[in-house]
């Protein structure tokens, strides 16, 4: 059916743009390769788990950044967790920003941390939105 072909092409181009725009890396492809008959929605499951987990961390980091003076050890610890979680789905930009944030923590640079965190939140929200749209389109009966 032409409509199906159109949808599939749209889906493929959505997926490709995520890579082209640097939002996702090879880890996402690995997740796709792990998807099989036993777990047909594996990628979506992992991504959903990630966003549930990471949303909590974002709030925690936000609160920690409001404290004065900043506890860089704690901030680094939270961001380490966040980085681990982002790495699991291949969130390329967000992962790079979390590394940057941790470098600022190590240097005791509060302003650097806050600026990087704003960028991170923006890219995090963008990827989340795009992935939600992607899965909405990809999953049958969505």
């Amino acid at each position, binding site marked *: 059916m032409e409509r199906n072909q159109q949808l599939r092409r749209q889906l493929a181009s959505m997926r490709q743009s995520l890579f082209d725009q640097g939002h996702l890396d090879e880890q996402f492809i690995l997740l796709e390769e*792990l998807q099989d008959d036993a777990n047909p929605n594996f990628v979506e499951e992992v991504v959903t788990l*990630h966003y549930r987990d990471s949303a909590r961390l974002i709030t925690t980091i936000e609160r920690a950044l409001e404290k004065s003076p900043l506890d860089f050890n704690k901030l680094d610890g939270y961001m*380490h*967790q966040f980085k*681990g979680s982002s*790495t699991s*789905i291949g969130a390329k930009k967000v992962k790079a920003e979390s590394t940057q944030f941790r470098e600022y923590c190590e240097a005791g640079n509060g302003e650097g941390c806050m600026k990087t965190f704003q960028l991170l939140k923006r890219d995090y929200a963008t990827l989340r939105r795009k992935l939600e749209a992607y899965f909405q389109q990809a999953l049958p009966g969505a």
Partner: protein
Amino acid sequence: MSPASSSVAVSDQFPAGLRVLVVDDDPIWLRILEKMLRKCLYEVTKCNRAEIALDMLRMSKNGYDIVISDVHMPDMDGFKLHEQVGLEMDLPVIMMSVDGCTQDVMKGVTHGACNYLLKPIRIKELRNIWQHVAQQPKPFEESDDSYSVNQGNWRTSNRRKDEEEEAEKRDDTSTLKKPRFLVS
């Protein structure tokens, strides 16, 4: 599945059926690693707490062939877990981390980890973990292939046991762990 039957299965189809205990406080990574290890035809047990992992290992003395654990966990330092496992159970331990800093890697080595995997981990790296497991010669049929491939590991494991006994006599903890570090 009784332990007896699964250990026979391991030696017959080795490395398929390798019994892996994977420890990580991140539930997402546990899920992904489980899937990847199953794809390698390994038998996987997941655990999200280091303390629980130690209990499981203590309760099932010969229930696992290898442990893979993240280094940074809230309840027990992953390095400490590695050290305990290596000392109490003489099982190979592989550490994982999303960091690759030299300090962490060296710390892992001195605590007895036999390998270090950087997240994101590729399937190829997990496929190779069987190389760290010493295989006893088959009871009825000594296969030249399997014995020669693992001869190095088997000897290393026995030599380490001797060294441990020596060190205990001397009450010298610094030489207890001889790092057998393989970078894959």
